[in-house]
């Protein structure tokens, strides 16, 4: 691959992210709908959406608040779901660690599952890109996804119950993740890691506070790394 300029990397990221707007939109809308039904006002719903930008943890917080859980429990449980992002942060470090701090801060703010997976797929496929090009790819991927997430939540507040439940908007989430995983299954090691991840998620489902997710992720990473080591040099 020819060395990518930051400009071309930005647009590559932008176009790679476009299909995901189909599913990020409905998911964002769903948060607006559920938030309004739960009795949050517009500023609070948008506060969640803009300041947190992490759908799964936002829904968890909402659900616990509807059960009137203590404030501290709400915060801790929702944060536990986002702990996976520390692993995302670590796996970005070798690629983006040399970027200026303000860029790393902006990347951190917009690092959601979709932008992360799109970017890391690209860095793995073309590791020799400059740091500037890698950062530009991330910003390109964020450009359609983040504003649509925020705008869709606002739309959800307005539309509210006009959205029929038969649309099964909740299922947009697993479908997006599957669409992110499938192209990443390039080697035997990646496939082994993904299978471990599924099996461990089932076996550890009884663990509280989303700990199952962290343990399943760690186990899958160990299996992936071990398969890669045994297969010899990196393909």
């Amino acid at each position: 691959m020819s060395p990518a300029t930051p400009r071309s990397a930005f647009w590559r990221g932008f176009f790679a992210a476009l299909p995901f707007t189909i599913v990020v939109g409905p998911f964002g809308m769903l948060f607006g709908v559920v938030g309004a039904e739960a009795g949050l006002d517009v500023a609070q719903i948008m506060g969640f959406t803009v300041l947190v930008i992490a759908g799964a943890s936002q829904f968890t917080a909402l659900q616990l608040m509807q059960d009137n859980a203590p404030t501290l429990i709400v915060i801790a449980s929702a944060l536990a779901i986002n702990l996976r992002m520390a692993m995302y942060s670590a796996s970005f470090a070798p690629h983006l660690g040399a970027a200026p701090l303000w860029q790393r801060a902006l990347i951190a703010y917009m690092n959601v599952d979709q932008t992360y997976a799109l970017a890391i797929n690209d860095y793995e496929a073309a590791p020799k890109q400059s740091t500037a090009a890698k950062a530009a790819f991330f910003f390109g991927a964020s450009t359609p996804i983040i504003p649509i997430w925020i705008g869709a939540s606002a739309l959800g507040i307005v539309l509210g119950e006009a959205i029929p439940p038969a649309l099964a908007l909740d299922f947009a989430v697993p479908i997006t993740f599957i669409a992110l995983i499938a192209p990443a299954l390039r080697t035997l090691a990646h496939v082994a890691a993904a299978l471990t991840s599924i099996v461990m998620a089932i076996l550890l489902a009884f663990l509280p506070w989303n700990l199952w997710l962290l343990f399943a992720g760690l186990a899958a990473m160990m299996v992936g790394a071990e398969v890669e080591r045994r297969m010899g040099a990196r393909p």
Partner: protein
Amino acid sequence: MNYSMTEIWIVILALGAGTFVIRISFLGILGDRALPVWVLRHLRYTAVGILPAMVTPLVLWPQATGGQMEAGRIAAAMLALAIGLWSKSAIWAIVVGMATLWGLGWLLG
């Protein structure tokens, strides 16, 4: 929901700040320091290690059905994966996955 305005905003601000700290953590502290080879080897499998685990309960025991397995959702997930693997294209995986779910939902009523 029984929270004061202040309590709701405390949740929002704490969750926002905490999530940002989690996200910047390693990226902010490590900078461009070189990591050991074995650590890098593990980090390469972060995405394929975490995302399938997140998908599994959403497909097998979704909240929207009260935790009951549902043929439509499982079929939609399998088809989306198959199409994604075959076409290497996200858009077809998404389109086929959602179309299957809606189609089966309509057929099975």
